[in-house]
């Protein structure tokens, strides 16, 4: 069959996307739907002294205004929510904590009316001291963002041990240690200490955030949302509105890109509260500027201290990581924890100490972002690897080869990694760029070329759970029910390919029903690059469940052993005493049940645990390994950097659709180039001053390298479907350090704070020249 596992078929929905037929959530128009607009805080930190919405409420066309007055002592819904810590409120209660924080919201018959009515809401603020940097936030007597924070009753298992540090702006901390750090440094010939920073950034998904809520006659709520984890939203809304989860239905249509920005509650509590208040459906679509004010990537400051021997063996590494989570915890605690595990890099280091500190500041909240904190820590450890290599006069590839975590090696967490093709990734990106051969010098003398590489290890969320249903219809076609949201990554197609493979039916006969909490079984989330591994496997198990049922039916019908039943061409076959029996699924079903209309339902569940069978901890159901190598051209006179070639390798376990995997590698490379060279959110006194794509720079088509070389390494994982692991985040992570390393190779300067703007490169070049002149001393003849 042409379209099953291992084939690069196109996405099932490609044509409807290209033709514009595919509907996105902002296309949804429910009868009587009201339009919502939010009033946002103009202050970074302020007490709300008074809020009066009466004039707005009376404005013609306005059907409801939501303010804190609706929250106080409301028996129908709570005011506080949050996935890890309950520090968010539907609208502000006593305080606002960043410019853009939700103060109130209006639902009106038309959007422009809602917008105009915002001006009629009177709010009196009393400004409070605000903190914007790590230093300010962590200073003694710093103004506190949250005086007290509670945890949800039924929180995430993997985060049961994280707690806010009361009386400070420390949201949560993470600590990991292995071996004896001090001894490690003592035994080292050299110790390196460096600080690396990266700014906050935007996900820049094409579709902005959008949510629609409808109160149902039975008191339940239906919520459509651009959300990557509908079940988490369902649980949060159920808790907020005191409803059983059966009365909350969350639906995600096809999503126009997520990259982490569409996880966890964003607009849903607000539209649900307004739907409850107005008794009418309420929809809210954010403008781009509002998305900038809703969710960002964690800015980070990372202090690394590394001890090495003269021969280049890493003996000890200490990582101190500060992550800026903005005004609310969101999923920050998991970002701190997950990125903490891998902060020392994919190396075999006997002595490690890692401390992460997640800090509240009066800025836009930061949440999940493709790479989940690992792009920040890899920026640090991969830059440092090259600094070490340079100091030891060793090839950076060789230094990595000497220290790489190998199959079966013991990781920082104490567990042994398996299905870990890191060495292949590193060596294959190196050979793709002819590592070791000098770049030919460009004809113009102001240009210089260089090569650099970086590698990574990343965890996936563990423990977690995904379940799938497959229904074999009466005509032999199949319907698959998965909680996984198709955010453009092609998950629907992957699931269909798996069913096609298992049941021997063409992909076109498989319908995927996705991300609807009423129809699908529980799935934790579409993130952490986990869907193919977890949901893919659940779908495979569900399809195999159907195969078993089919084999039983065939066995009964033909009196043959079930294990001899074969599956091909949408039917079963069996040879009994040299007689060939064959039937299509359709005929088998009607023959077995004596009626047209019988279906089979298969179920599959994948659940991962925090402990392995051998008793070792399991911090990740599988480990991502990947590497990137860049060839750059630097203009010595302007400092501008062009990525000429980029090679990206990822160990995907098994490429179920190689083209999709390659797209992830290429897309990750392009996003990574933007983050490396230009992206950064800029604040002035707490005000985000570049909240749009004119002022916030993204990589454009002209910035894409002439050549991006995707390399798929396939080291099968025994628990993944056909050996598959995840691939979504791997490719982004090594890009920035690979580029920084290539720049140093080209022109001998090092930038440690992202983004690497031309101005920073030029300044570094000028400083280097001044230093060189100083060393040379005064030229003879001049005095």
């Amino acid at each position, binding site marked *: 069959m042409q379209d099953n596992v291992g084939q690069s078929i196109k996405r099932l929905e490609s044509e409807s996307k290209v033709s514009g037929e595919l509907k996105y959530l902002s296309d949804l128009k429910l009868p009587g739907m009201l339009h919502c607009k939010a009033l946002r805080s103009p202050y970074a930190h302020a007490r709300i002294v008074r809020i009066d919405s009466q004039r707005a409420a009376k404005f013609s066309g306005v059907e409801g205004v939501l303010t804190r007055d609706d929250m106080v002592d409301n028996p129908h819904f709570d005011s506080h929510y949050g996935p890890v810590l309950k520090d968010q409120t539907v609208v502000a209660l006593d305080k606002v904590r960043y410019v853009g924080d939700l103060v109130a919201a209006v639902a009106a018959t038309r959007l422009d009316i809602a917008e105009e009515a915002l001006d009629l809401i009177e709010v009196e603020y009393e400004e409070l001291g605000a903190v914007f940097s790590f230093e300010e936030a962590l200073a003694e007597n710093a103004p506190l963002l949250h005086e007290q924070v509670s945890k949800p009753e039924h929180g995430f298992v993997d985060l049961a041990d994280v707690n806010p540090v009361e009386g400070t702006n420390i949201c949560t901390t993470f600590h990991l240690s292995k071996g004896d750090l001090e001894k490690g440094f003592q035994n080292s010939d050299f110790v390196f200490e460096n600080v690396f920073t990266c700014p906050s950034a935007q996900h820049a998904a094409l579709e902005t955030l959008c949510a629609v809520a409808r109160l149902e006659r039975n008191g339940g709520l239906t919520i459509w949302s651009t959300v990557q984890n509908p079940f988490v939203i369902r649980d949060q809304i159920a808790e907020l509105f005191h409803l059983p989860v059966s009365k909350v239905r969350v639906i995600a249509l096809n999503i126009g890109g997520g990259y982490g920005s569409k996880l966890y509650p964003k607009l849903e509590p607000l539209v649900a509260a307004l739907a409850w208040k107005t008794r009418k459906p309420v929809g809210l679509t954010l403008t781009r*500027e509002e998305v900038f004010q809703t969710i960002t990537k964690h800015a980070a400051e990372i202090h690394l201290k590394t001890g090495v021997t003269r021969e280049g063996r890493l003996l000890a590494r200490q990582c101190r990581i500060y992550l800026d989570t903005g005004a609310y915890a969101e999923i920050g605690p998991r970002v701190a924890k997950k990125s903490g595990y891998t902060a020392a890099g994919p190396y075999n280091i006997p002595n490690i100490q890692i401390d992460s500190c997640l800090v509240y500041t009066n800025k836009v909240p930061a949440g999940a972002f493709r790479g989940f904190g690992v792009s920040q820590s890899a920026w640090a450890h991969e830059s440092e690897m090259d600094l070490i290599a340079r100091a030891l006069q060793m090839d950076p590839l060789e230094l990595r080869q000497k220290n790489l975590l190998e199959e079966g090696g013991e990781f920082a967490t104490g567990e042994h990694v398996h299905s870990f093709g890191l060495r292949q990734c590193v060596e294959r990106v190196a050979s793709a760029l002819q590592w070791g051969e000098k770049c030919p010098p460009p004809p113009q003398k102001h240009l210089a070329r260089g090569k650099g590489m970086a590698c990574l290890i990343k965890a996936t969320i563990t423990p977690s759970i995904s379940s799938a249903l497959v229904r074999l219809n009466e005509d032999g076609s199949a319907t698959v029910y998965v909680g996984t949201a198709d955010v453009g990554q092609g998950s629907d197609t992957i699931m269909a390919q798996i069913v096609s493979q298992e049941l021997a039916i063409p992909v076109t006969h498989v319908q995927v029903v996705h991300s609807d909490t009423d129809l699908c079984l529980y799935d934790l989330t579409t993130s952490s690059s986990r869907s193919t591994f977890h949901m893919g496997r659940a779908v495979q198990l569900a399809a195999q469940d159907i195969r078993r049922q089919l084999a039983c039916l065939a066995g009964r019908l033909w009196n043959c052993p079930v294990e001899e039943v074969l599956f091909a061409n949408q039917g079963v076959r069996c040879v009994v005493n040299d007689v060939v029996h064959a039937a299509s699924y359709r005929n088998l079903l009607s023959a077995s049940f004596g009626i047209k209309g019988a279906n089979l339902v298969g179920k599959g569940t994948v659940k991962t645990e925090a402990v392995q069978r051998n008793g070792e901890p399991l911090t990740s159901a599988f480990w991502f390994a990947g590497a990137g190598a860049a060839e750059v051209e630097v203009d010595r006179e302007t400092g501008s950097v062009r990525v000429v070639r980029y090679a990206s390798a990822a160990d995907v376990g098994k490429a179920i659709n190689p083209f999709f995997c390659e797209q992830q590698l290429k897309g990750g490379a392009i996003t990574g180039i933007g983050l490396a060279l230009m992206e950064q959110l800029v604040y002035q006194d707490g005000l985000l001053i570049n909240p749009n794509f*004119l002022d916030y720079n993204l990589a454009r088509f002209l910035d894409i390298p002439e050549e991006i070389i995707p390399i798929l390494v396939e080291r099968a994982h025994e628990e993944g479907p056909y050996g598959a692991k995840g691939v979504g985040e791997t490719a982004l992570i090594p890009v920035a350090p690979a580029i920084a390393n290539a720049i140093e190779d080209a022109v001998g300067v090092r930038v440690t704070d992202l983004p690497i703007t031309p101005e920073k490169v030029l300044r570094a070049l000028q400083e280097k020249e001044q230093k060189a002149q100083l060393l040379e001393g005064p030229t003879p003849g001049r005095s």
Partner: protein
Amino acid sequence: MGLNRFEYIEASSIPEASRFLADRPEEARIYAGGTSLLLLMKQRIARPAYLVNIKKIPGLRYIDKNDGTVRIGALTTHHDLEFSPLIRRWLPVISELEPEVANIRVRSTGTIGGNLGFAEPLTDLPPVLIAMDARIKVADESLERLLPLEHLFRGYYETSLRPQELITEIQVDLPAPFFGIKYLRFSMGSDKPLVGCAVGIRIDPESKLCVDARCVLGCVGPTPLRVREAEEALKGLPYRVNSSAKAARIAATACSPLTDLRATEEYKRAIVEVLMRRAVEEAFRRASSKLQG
């Protein structure tokens, strides 16, 4: 934020548009491609009560050449300029720069009239056109006048046009023989340029000395800046590294860039210097390459 409420008017002729603008000088704005104006309106920086769409006015979108002059109608889009064979043949410097202007969406709807009439400092066409001594034709209800493009720009987003006037045409005389022009644009991760630098050089075919020069900077001041002192530094001399470096230094001092989100003043001056040096060299090369044929 959404747009403010406005009334939308479609003008069918220049006099009609002009009359409407004359009657409501503070409240009405010309609406051509809308690429720049709508952004301002979205940010509520501009809140016009009336938008006068001029795109339906016939006969304003053309690229012609006669009597040694290229004439470009005000409604000509960036895309038209990018792909026009006539431009490619006679004003190739424009075909060269257009693919880098903005992005494909802005290029397909944004017009040259809007590009100039908006007087935004971060643009590419004005310095290049000024380096070619372009003129614009400006019309109101009854009159037409011609003025050097250089005289259009007054300040940030400010032109010398009267409220009732429209730009209808851009005129560029065919370059003299032995004239070479180079435009260099520096940008980083943004659709808009950070610094633009246009240099035109005319040489004497016998002596190969520069007989006339234009050095025009974009993005580093309220208006495009013609650096006459830099031009003087090049005149009467053949191409020399020293003289181009001198002109570049003059330009870097003469301009008045501001530190903003994208770069510091200091850096922008450094870029001006580099671009000017490189543009002078290439303009000389182009001027002399015409010597061979």
